[in-house]
């Protein structure tokens, strides 16, 4: 009996112990950086930090910058960036960009033979719906019921309302991208719960209506134009998205909405934005404070790091002989993207540069430190020995009378050579040499016999290309000689002290000046600026047209204009428009990750949309208005009215070309080419369009990307786009 009791006891014990341990299984994260939703939303600033994630969804790729804890799976995290994939689809498919990398199917974009299995198309599609998904989640978590449950205060509820309008704008923005790239897509709103279900499909016309109605609903509720914090959406962003939706309505739903486009473009034009005077400043590291940008994607070298975004745009386009750090403010380039000949040619003379500075070669040098430098000794000032005959030559500008200097092996005043006894021969430790009268001097030092020569030389541009001689003046900021002149066809050379004894010119036009050699032949006429940089050998110079389109910011050094081999980075000009340096020339905060923000919407677009809408028959504007809007953009680009168009010369093709120039690499090109019927057709061909060098038309259905095969397989509600 006793032993039966014992047995029963033991078994009973066994199971009671087991049951008491079942609550062990209800684990929650122990890591304070990962919280359950109820714990999380009780924290201060919780709602704001989710809103920030919605915006960050366009910029970062995960919760650890630059990579780590990625938002998406199935693709390298750097590739999963919203902007990077949007850029691939909008730019690599067009004349504006090619990429040389061997990554998966990346070359299919420019070849225009992508398939529904494409990993990059899948990645962008996923990213768009990721964004829509977290907007929906935010709206669900801020439903009245959820806020009541958490006992949210009235003050916080008011703030949350503001956030909700922005979340809805952000969702509309991504739905617009879905419409533009994929047309008939899955459709989910905050009404759908998270879980395993197959979202229903929405057709383009209904999606168009949905986006329109959402935007019209929030138009007057969201923060008024230009009143929100930087990088957050306001009324201006809503107007802009409406204008872009209407401009392309014909593509999406087969109906013209140009009048509506004009209406909203004009709201923006009258919204208080102004064009940034210097075009180039729109794309620099400090572009987060200007009055032209309506809605940016914000990046920061320290706080918002990613391998996509502007990091990708800037670094993928650098390599070869393009010196990244000095020119673009990043540590190195990734040797990927360039542009085609067809784009370069739209700018006429590239960047107005007729002859550019030749890359300097390093030669043995001696330094000429002295009183004229002030407190810091610059290594930029030196004499060089290009032919290794131990005779060092160079020019130096002395701003003040009685400037002194020594000749030194290092950039230091000691040890150095001077001339105490004034015998024209230097001695070690001798007194500094003194320049009595300010001016531009030639200095020569012969290390064989320690003799030296100092001679004041004033330079003039002369020759048959000029109607009269033009003297150079020294530009202290640039540390070089500069002259403005009007060139004709003919010969050009430079002479010292108004005498033919010492001249400099460049008969072989290689960018390096030769002493007393043949003269440079000028083939075109127009206003120019000439720069002579004679600090060290090689003596180099630059001639740049002053009436040119400032938007053509190309890298040509070592690059060919034509592309015979897309894999070769040196073929095709680089686009150096985006940079990680500030408008004052400072480097960005991090040479790995630029500070440069991406202007997703900016005022110039509203002007060109208004102009185009009028030309396409919108009511509410005249052709004169169209010309006026158009010329706002032109005159900024040329910094003059010289290139402006009039009612006779402005046409739709001019607008398309102008958009190419204005928005190069700003992820607009594919949509523009489609609207003008030039994306797939043979109306316009560019190098390697359709996979052949001279370009060829491709199937019309490629105006829309395929629904990725994975999602078609997963979701039976979806239908593949025509042609795929």
């Amino acid at each position, binding site marked *: 009996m006793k032993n039966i009791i014992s047995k029963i006891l033991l078994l009973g014990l066994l199971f009671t*112990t087991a049951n008491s341990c079942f609550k062990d299984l209800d684990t929650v994260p122990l890591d304070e950086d990962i919280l359950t939703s109820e714990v999380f939303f009780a924290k201060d600033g919780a709602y704001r*930090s989710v809103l920030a994630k919605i915006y960050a969804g366009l910029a970062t790729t995960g919760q650890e910058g630059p990579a780590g804890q990625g938002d998406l799976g199935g693709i390298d995290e750097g590739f999963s960036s919203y902007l990077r994939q949007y850029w691939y689809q909008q730019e690599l498919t067009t004349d504006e960009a090619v990429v040389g990398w061997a990554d998966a199917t990346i070359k299919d974009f420019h070849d225009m033979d992508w398939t529904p299995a494409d990993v990059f198309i899948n990645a962008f599609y996923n990213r768009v719906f*990721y964004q829509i998904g977290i907007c929906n989640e935010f709206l669900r978590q801020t439903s009245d019921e959820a806020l009541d449950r958490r006992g949210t205060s009235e003050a916080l509820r008011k703030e949350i309302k503001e956030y909700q309008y922005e979340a809805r704008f952000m969702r509309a923005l991504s739905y617009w991208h879905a419409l533009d790239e994929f047309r008939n897509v899955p459709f989910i709103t905050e009404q759908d719960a998270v879980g395993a279900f197959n979202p229903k499909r929405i057709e383009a016309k209904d999606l168009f209506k949905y986006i329109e109605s959402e935007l019209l609903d929030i138009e007057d509720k969201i923060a008024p134009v230009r009143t929100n914090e930087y990088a*957050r959406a306001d009324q201006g962003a809503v107007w802009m998205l409406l204008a872009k939706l209407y401009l392309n309505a014909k593509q999406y739903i087969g109906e013209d909405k140009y009048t509506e486009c004009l209406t909203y473009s004009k709201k923006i034009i009258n919204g208080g934005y102004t064009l940034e005077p210097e075009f180039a400043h729109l794309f620099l590291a400090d572009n987060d404070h200007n009055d032209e940008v309506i809605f940016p994607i914000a990046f920061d070298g320290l706080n918002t790091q990613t391998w996509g975004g502007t990091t990708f745009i800037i670094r993928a386009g650098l390599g070869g002989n393009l010196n990244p750090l000095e020119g673009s403010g990043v540590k190195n380039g990734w040797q990927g993207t360039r542009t085609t000949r067809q784009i370069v040619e739209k700018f006429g003379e590239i960047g107005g540069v007729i002859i550019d500075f030749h890359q300097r070669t390093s030669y043995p040098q001696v330094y000429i430190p002295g009183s004229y430098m002030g407190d810091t000794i610059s290594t930029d000032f030196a004499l060089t020995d290009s032919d290794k005959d131990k005779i060092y030559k160079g020019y130096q500008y002395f701003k003040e009378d009685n400037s002194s200097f020594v000749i030194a092996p290092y950039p230091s005043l000691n040890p150095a050579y001077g001339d105490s006894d004034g015998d024209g021969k230097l001695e070690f430790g001798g007194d500094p040499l003194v320049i009595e009268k300010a001016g531009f001097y030639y200095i020569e030092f012969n290390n064989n016999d320690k003799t030296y020569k100092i001679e004041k030389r004033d330079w003039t541009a002369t020759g048959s290309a000029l109607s009269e001689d033009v003297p150079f003046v020294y530009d202290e900021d640039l540390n070089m000689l500069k002259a403005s002149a009007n060139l004709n066809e003919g010969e050009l050379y430079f002479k010292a002290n108004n005498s033919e004894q010492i001249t400099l010119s460049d008969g072989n036009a290689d960018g390096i000046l030769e002493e007393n050699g043949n003269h440079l032949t000028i083939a075109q006429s127009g206003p120019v600026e000439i720069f002579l940089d004679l600090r060290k050998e090689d003596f180099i110079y630059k001639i740049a047209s002053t009436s040119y389109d400032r938007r053509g910011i190309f890298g040509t050094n070592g690059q060919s204009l034509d592309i015979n081999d897309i*894999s070769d980075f040196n073929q095709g000009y680089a686009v150096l428009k985006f940079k990680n340096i500030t408008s004052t020339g400072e480097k960005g905060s991090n040479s790995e990750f630029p500070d440069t923000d991406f202007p997703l919407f900016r005022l110039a677009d509203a002007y060109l949309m208004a102009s185009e809408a009028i030309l396409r028959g919108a009511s509410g504007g005249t052709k004169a208005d169209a010309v006026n809007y158009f010329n706002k953009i032109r005159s900024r680009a040329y910094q003059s009215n010289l290139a402006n168009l009039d009612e006779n010369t402005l046409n739709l093709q001019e607008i398309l070309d102008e958009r190419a120039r204005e928005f190069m690499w700003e992820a607009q090109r594919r949509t523009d080419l489609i609207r003008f019927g030039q994306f797939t057709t043979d109306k316009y061909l560019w190098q390697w369009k359709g996979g052949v060098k001279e370009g060829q038309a491709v199937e019309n259905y490629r105006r829309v990307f395929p629904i990725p095969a994975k*999602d078609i397989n997963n979701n039976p509600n979806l239908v593949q786009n025509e042609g795929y």
Partner: protein
Amino acid sequence: MIFFYFYILFQIKQQKSTMKRRFTNHLKVFYFILFLIPISLISQKTVTGIVTDKNTKEPLIGVYVVVKDTLVGGITDFDGSYKITVPKGYNTLKFTFVGYQPIEKEINSNSVINIEMSEGQLLDEVVVIGYGTVKRKDVTGSLKSVSAKDFNKGAVTAPQQLLAGKIPGVSITTDGSPGGGSAIRIRGESSLSATNDPLIVVDGIPLDNTGINGGRNNLNFINPADIETMTVLKDASATAIYGNRASAGVILITTKKGKLSDGLKVAYGAKFSVGKITKEVDVLKADEFRDLVNSRFEEGAKQRDWMGDASTDWQKEIYQNAYGQDHNLSISGGFGSIPFRASMGYTNNNGVLKTDKFNRLSGSINLTPGFINNTLQLKLGLKVSKSKNHFADKGAIGSAVGFDPTQSIHSDNEKFGGYFAWLDENGSIIGLSPANPLALLDQKEDNSNLTRYALNASIDYRFPFLTALRANLNLGLDNSNSNGTVFIDTTAAFAYNEDTGGGVDNDYKQSLKNKLLEFYLNYKEKLFGNDFDIMMGYSWQHFYQNSESHRSDIRKTEGNVSSSFDAAELYMLSLFGRVNYDINYFAFLTATLRRDYTSRFAPKNRAGLFPALGIAFKIIDNKNKYFNNLKLRLGWGVTGQQDIGGYYLYQGLYQKSTNTARYQFGDEFITTFRPNGYDSKIKWETTKTYNVGLDISIIQNRLSGSIEAYKKDTKDLLNYEVQVPVGSNLTNIVATNIGSMTTKGLEFSINSTPVNTQNFSWDFSFNTSLNRNEITKLNSDESSLGEHVGGISGGVGNTIQIHTVGYEPKSFFVYEQKYDSAGKLIPGEFVDRNGDGQVNELDKYRRETSSPRIILGITNNLTYKKFSLSFAGRAHLGNEVYNNVETDIGFLKRIDNLGVLNNIHRAAIDNNIEEQDQATYSDAYVQDASFFKLDHITLGYNFGKLIGKSFRIYTTVQNAFVITKYKGIDPEVFGGIDNNLYPRPRTFVFGLNVDF
């Protein structure tokens, strides 16, 4: 007294249930057992005696001696003696012992009763199975034990290596690095992305599969010299008792214990080894490279200027002769009356890759005392290990293969520590240029320290009043701590950064704390005249880990300093039971049932039920001189899998961003919180296994063999990366259950002793297995290509393998290469297999060759007088390897890629491959990697007793030779993608064993 016990229980329950207390809560089971013990102490008369075998007159150890009809009893100790106090009024002792006829004896007035027992049947070999043992002849499932004498010899530093090639269906791929890990696959893979590593149970403690940061091999804490047996459980009828983690098979490791009967033994073993690489990747020599550059680029071309004056064989420079030593000292015997074994081991191995080092000091103690007439048996084990690693940067391997051979290792550029680096004309490092392999090795200090201690205590109590009932409590504690630092000086070109000054100063630490409590009752009795054995148990396991890491450059530049902290835990609870029933000594039936709970899944999906059934028909059982044994085994069972990595997979969570992933609002940077994707319905992956086996043993067991066939069906595959319908979740990829898979196989093994004379003996064993896996269902429909897997070098995101329904997982997905009439490859030309006039993704086809179709293993042990010779080898047949080394560097354009010179694989010239994409997806690079490897050959000499000690010396050549057609450095590539693997050295070992 019982009341008192419940009072205590109640008190404990009142206490707040913190994590720590939960563990102590379980101790109440233990208290309960202690409480039962005193019952047997109420007694009046003492009887002693010795129990011996009737034939041999040897004392019998472990005989149960019980006073009939009472709770009182005991067990004989090592010299066969027992002592028992008989309560008043009882007068009969009952002696029972497995394999012997039970005896009852009246006490009368005797105080000494000596008993001789005679064998009922031959004493059977007993095999360790989960929660108990079973007689070998009764085994119903597929399992196999390997004991110390059959282990692989040589410079073995990790337990896994002992088993390679020994068991059919078990493939073990060992890494070449010192102390490196091994991938074990039992009967192929049955999961796509949950773990395919078997569950390893060491002395009753199931280990955590999670590796620790800074560790090389999860089993490094066990000194191979301490292992007694390793048992591999392959089919579900054997593994289901470990249901929750058993889908990939189970390996039970039992360590050596001391025996009182053996007296005090001291043994010392030492090994000295030197390893050398066997082969280099076939790249151009410096002169050939120079000629090629000169012929490709004309006079004055910049590429010619880039060349250096040196002739450097970079592969030769990064490798070294790897010296190693290993020492073991063990003492075993009795400490008083407590059997014990203590051992210490020291291993110091260098890698063949320069600067790679592994250093381990390990110790273990096993105590196995018995109390209260041995009715209470304790097994206490402690294993401690401390290891130190210096990790060489394995990137140096790939870098050396492709580095310009005309450059010298060193330059006079002090800025970069005197190492050659690719610089532009301004003296800056060229972006994306490859790192100097020697700089990578010398300028990176990557060190880690690990300590681990594993404590197990098992208490086994046989109830004196009911000797058929046994209670077992098993407690385990397994703690690991690691810390490490990575330091790269600012002078290192490969870590140079203009903004921050460069360099790396990282450190990390991690600790894992795993606890186990298991309790089971085992009742063995005759039922209807047959043996009946029932076991029921409960198991509780807690896995906890926390880690911390800090990263920055040397100067700790703002914005470049980051820290992370992480902690997570997992609980698993199980109830399990097993019934064994021997039907008239003809059929043996085993039925098991296990119910498991895991905290990984939501309450609704937590429980998994894993049944299994096995039956063995003992058709012939020792009946005949020539036919000793013929047994048919049938097994069926279900096992589960939940080990997919994440800990909180079913919960919707918000995750904080680091400071480098914030977003600008106005002039402020906002830390973001992200709602993570999740599958609230994630559940167990289950594998159903069918197994048929036939065991034969003939000619007095001199020849024995088994043949087995199996089929495994896995459903609800846990997949870490499943793309869900877009829009249905908060991200595109979640961990969820998707797809099914089938594995089929045949296994055959034979063990024989062809010769066995006094002077000469020869043992021979051979095994072979065939295995095929096939995906039977994936979420994607039949028309889809499948899931791309198997990332390769050469283009970000490129993959070479694919999971497709109807094919083997990880099939190679490639183009069919075109060849000219002379059989020479035509670069970049592939067959348009679907005939649509263009060659694209749809023309790729699948080659189901990433894992071997047939695996063979062979072992021979020969002894002649005092000499012994053993050798063992393995073969893999029918597998192919994607030669990613050739595709990554075997193209001519690479020579001046990215503005620097790079060496190329000779295949580039042989095949005239100009561009990388002419090679990447070509099936010409999926190459036959069938091989035979002689893993080791050992020659030993046993001196016998010299100066009172027994000496044995031996020498081993490990990885002696490989026969293969494969052109890369080694055909044995786990996963089938050869991408600069760490070379497995050929190692020469000299060893010495002394028994004192």
